[in-house]
């Protein structure tokens, strides 16, 4: 790597700006308030410690306070790995700020470690000088031995490079709950709420939402609700009165476009987008799905919306899930199936049948690390080529991808639009990071959403010259075939997986017909490009020589990296694709404008392969498959290297 690192402006994960404002707290303790522009917190503990819940609650408090934020939950596939071990560590990271943020942050500023395993697994990522909060009660010889600490890091001086605050979180929680009537073990389980209370004090978070949440969550167990609320308050009050924390922090709300907001995860947004697609098309939604990480939450969410006429079917397997969805589509519903990579592999044959029968179908693939079972709870983008080509025969389907958790909503509506308008299965590629990550979302008005009804024009009258119904007669513009649903008299017809004769849809083994139909199916998918926007290029000055292109969840890290590059005085264009098949019609011309095109992906270069094949552009692939999103700093270094070497070679060429 050449050249200095980019100078960093107020953004993603380096050098937050701080201003100290003095104030006093009750009890005569002088405490100061420091104003920060952003902070990254990572909560880490045992899988059973409730770190995900704690993180989600802190996120909700932060969202309702008005900060912009992004989150990164990171947990093992095992529900409860052996207590206190490294494989059992679960963590939750969020970045929140007084300005818009694009990522959950490269590295934490604050690490809360609930036990020695959590410390060992995460300390390497806490930069020197960072704030480290430990539950000293858990640093017992037994727990230390489990993860191979020969001596207690709290006492042996090995944590001197960090601001370490060691607090007996567990025993303070049980002390606070000694009159609650709960046993010690039960009371200990509220230590995550004590910790949340402490953090809420440290960062001036509103607390009402969490109290309401606990009351709601445990409404059938009021004693548990009361204990959790008491622990939460005790943690808050401890922060307020202890000398251990002399400083608290204020992060002002971020300026956002006027409107109403909520905090939303990718899976939640995707499910709501599908409900909206049903409402805006007028078609009943039918979801056929088999539980699979990390897609199951979409099934859970949709199963709650029966009042919208949403039918959810938990199938016996992945194949039945998509089969039932296709059957429902044949009947005139909007069939949907949700899964992850291994499920897509099983559904391949039915996707082919949907290509042949030309029925609308939305296939949601929430990608995870692969191959095989791979990394069920970690993120990856390695199903792109499977989505594009993972079927027998020439079986093209549209592929689209959301760029952020909230964007999953719009991507779902767009997937439904394409599926209905063109009568085709559509692959929507989300991923584990989008699915579980969260961000503030500007709530759209239902009436402002795209009207999908025009795509739904059921054939009710014969369209043939002799008064017969021709199911494979096509709309000349979209090439969509006529869609007549059972129940419509005079339109009875048979479809299936055997090659169809043009227009009639009868079985045909005719060589010329197969050639024609194969090319027609391809032309239909290619023709979707006419209905999608031209390439969206983000290049503030418009004269960048290097472009960075991505798709899906890498939007945040690439965007954060691009900001760093620009703040260092360099220029870079960011292109992020919503539509991967077909590409925007001008993409080839756009890419040809740049001296260098870099394509970061969480796979081994799948989009790069497609771009190189289609446009003969010398795309420079930058890849990683760590099960985690890219770090903005890493991408910035790659982009900077490309810019500097491009400039150098251009100068060289001119001499």
């Amino acid at each position: 790597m050449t050249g200095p690192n980019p100078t960093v402006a107020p953004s993603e994960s380096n050098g937050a700006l701080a201003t100290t404002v003095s104030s006093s707290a009750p009890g005569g303790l002088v405490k100061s308030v420091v104003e920060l522009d952003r902070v990254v917190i990572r909560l880490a503990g045992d899988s059973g410690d409730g770190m995900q819940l704690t993180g989600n609650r802190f996120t909700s408090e932060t969202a309702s306070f008005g900060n912009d934020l992004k989150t990164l939950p990171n947990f093992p596939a095992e529900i409860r790995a052996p207590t206190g071990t490294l494989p059992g560590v679960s963590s939750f990271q969020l970045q929140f700020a007084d300005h818009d943020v694009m990522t959950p942050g490269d590295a934490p500023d604050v690490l809360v470690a609930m036990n020695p395993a959590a410390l060992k697994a995460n300390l390497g990522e806490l930069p020197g000088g960072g704030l480290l909060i430990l539950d000293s009660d858990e640093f017992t010889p037994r727990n230390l031995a489990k993860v191979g600490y020969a001596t207690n890091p709290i006492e042996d001086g090995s944590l001197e490079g960090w601001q370490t605050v060691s607090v007996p979180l567990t025993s303070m929680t049980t002390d606070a709950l000694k009159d609650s009537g709960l046993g010690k073990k039960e009371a200990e389980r509220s230590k995550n709420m004590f910790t949340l209370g402490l953090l809420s004090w440290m960062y001036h978070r509103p607390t009402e939402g969490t109290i309401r949440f606990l009351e709601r969550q445990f409404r059938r167990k009021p004693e548990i609700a009361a204990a959790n609320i008491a622990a939460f308050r005790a943690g808050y009050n401890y922060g307020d009165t202890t000398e251990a924390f002399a400083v608290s922090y204020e992060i002002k709300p971020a300026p956002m476009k006027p409107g109403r907001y909520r905090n939303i995860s990718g899976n939640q947004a995707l499910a709501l987008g599908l409900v909206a697609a049903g409402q805006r098309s007028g078609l009943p939604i039918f979801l056929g799905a088999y539980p699979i990480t990390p897609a199951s939450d979409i099934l859970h969410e949709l199963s709650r919306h029966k009042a919208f006429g949403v039918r959810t079917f938990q199938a016996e397997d992945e194949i039945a899930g998509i089969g039932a969805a296709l059957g429902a589509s044949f009947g005139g519903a909007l069939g949907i199936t949700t899964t992850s990579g291994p499920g897509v592999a099983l559904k391949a044959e039915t996707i082919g049948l949907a290509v042949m029968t030309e029925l609308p179908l939305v296939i949601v693939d929430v990608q995870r690390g692969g191959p095989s079972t791979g990394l069920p709870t970690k993120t990856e983008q390695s199903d792109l080529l499977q989505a594009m080509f993972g079927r027998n025969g020439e079986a093209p389907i549209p592929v689209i991808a959301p760029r952020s958790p909230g964007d999953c909503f719009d991507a779902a509506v767009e997937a439904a639009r394409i599926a209905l308008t063109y009568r085709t299965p559509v692959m929507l590629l989300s991923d584990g990071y989008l699915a579980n990550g969260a961000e503030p979302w500007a709530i759209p008005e239902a009436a402002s959403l795209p009207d999908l009804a025009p795509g739904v024009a059921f054939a009710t009258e014969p369209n043939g010259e002799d008064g017969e119904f021709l199911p494979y007669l096509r709309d000349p513009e979209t090439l969509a075939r006529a869609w007549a649903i059972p129940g419509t008299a005079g339109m009875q017809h048979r479809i299936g997986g055997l090659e169809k004769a043009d227009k009639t849809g009868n079985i045909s083994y005719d060589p010329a017909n197969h050639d024609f139909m194969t090319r027609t199916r391809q032309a239909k998918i290619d023709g979707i490009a006419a209905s999608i926007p031209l390439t969206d290029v983000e290049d503030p000055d418009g004269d960048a020589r290097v472009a960075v292109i991505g798709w899906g969840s890498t939007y945040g890290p690439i965007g954060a990296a691009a900001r760093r590059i620009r703040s260092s005085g360099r220029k870079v264009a960011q292109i992020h694709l919503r539509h991967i098949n077909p590409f925007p019609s001008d993409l080839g011309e756009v890419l040809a404008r740049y001296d260098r095109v870099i394509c970061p992906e969480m796979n081994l270069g799948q989009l790069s392969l497609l771009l190189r094949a289609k446009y003969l552009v010398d795309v420079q692939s930058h890849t990683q498959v760590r099960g985690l999103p890219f770090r903005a700093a890493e991408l910035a270094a790659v982009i900077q290297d490309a810019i500097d070497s491009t400039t150098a070679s251009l100068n060289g060429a001119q001499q």
Partner: protein
Amino acid sequence: MTTVELGMPDAPTPIDAAIARSLEQHGPKVTELKGKDFKTDQEVRWCPGCGDYVILNAVQSFLPSLGIAREDMVIVSGIGCSSRFPYYMNTYGMHSIHGRAPAIATGLAAARPDLSVWVVTGDGDALSIGGNHLIHALRRNVDMTILLFNNRIYGLTKGQYSPTSEVGKVTKSTPMGSLDHPFNPVSLALGADATFVGRAMDSDRKGLTDVLRQAAEHKGTSLVEIYQNCNIFNDGAFELLKDPATGPMWTIPLEHGKPLVFGPDGASCVVREDFGGLRIAETNQVDASEIVVHDATREDPSYAFALSRLSSQDLRYTPMGVFRKVQKPSYEAMMSEQLDEARLQGPGDLDALLAGGDTWTVSA
């Protein structure tokens, strides 16, 4: 702001609208049909002499008597000789992929409870590659009628043994005889707690029609196993039962409410055995009160299961008719009830849904 009222229960959905337009165009649904009304213009392409012709004929002839409009009927099939069936029926149809017809039909029936959904499948399609979908369709009790054409061989792939072939079957893929034990499809279906299970012979028009009618009228999943002769790869597989000389001896006709007496001159009968089983006895050797009176409506499937176990691989003592016919709520009806219940408070309001949870407002 205009409210979009699509998808609400009282407003017509595009599906309702399409059907209403079709009614306007074609008048009331035609249910007084003849057998030929169910034929299509497609040339039937089974081998000459195939048992499938007989079944197709029987189905086309009896369907008009059900009074279902052709457009309200959908036949879904998988892959195999039998699965070409939909092409020859003037109804809606889907010739899908191997083994998956019950899954596809489940989605269709659940999304459109107004339709009459049929599945046509074979022993390889339903019991090998699609075994999982079959048992789950049966346990869910989705309202559909499954016709399982059992010829005990793979025909379309030219003669390999199937999951119903007898042990030791010599075929192209088993030159020294097959090793695996066959499924008894009726036992399998009863094991999955199917609410309707019947068996019929392709060449027995009357018996076949009777079982098919009861299956079609049954609310819930009906499975009808149809013994079907493949005259190319497994000719004569059911000859023992078809031959007038031997058939009556080895066939146990099941008639609800009638004693299970069969064979020439009623020489044989079915009596109870220990552990809830059944056995064959000579009628003149037992007291009349010991002879089992057939009851297809027993809630407990053990009796029907015991009946299904009377027959052996070589087809001796094969009960034919309706084994079980019990009423249980069907899956799609219960699904619709849940939707209705969810709408008691009114139809879903999209704006309210999108703004659910904790929200905050940023003012200009």
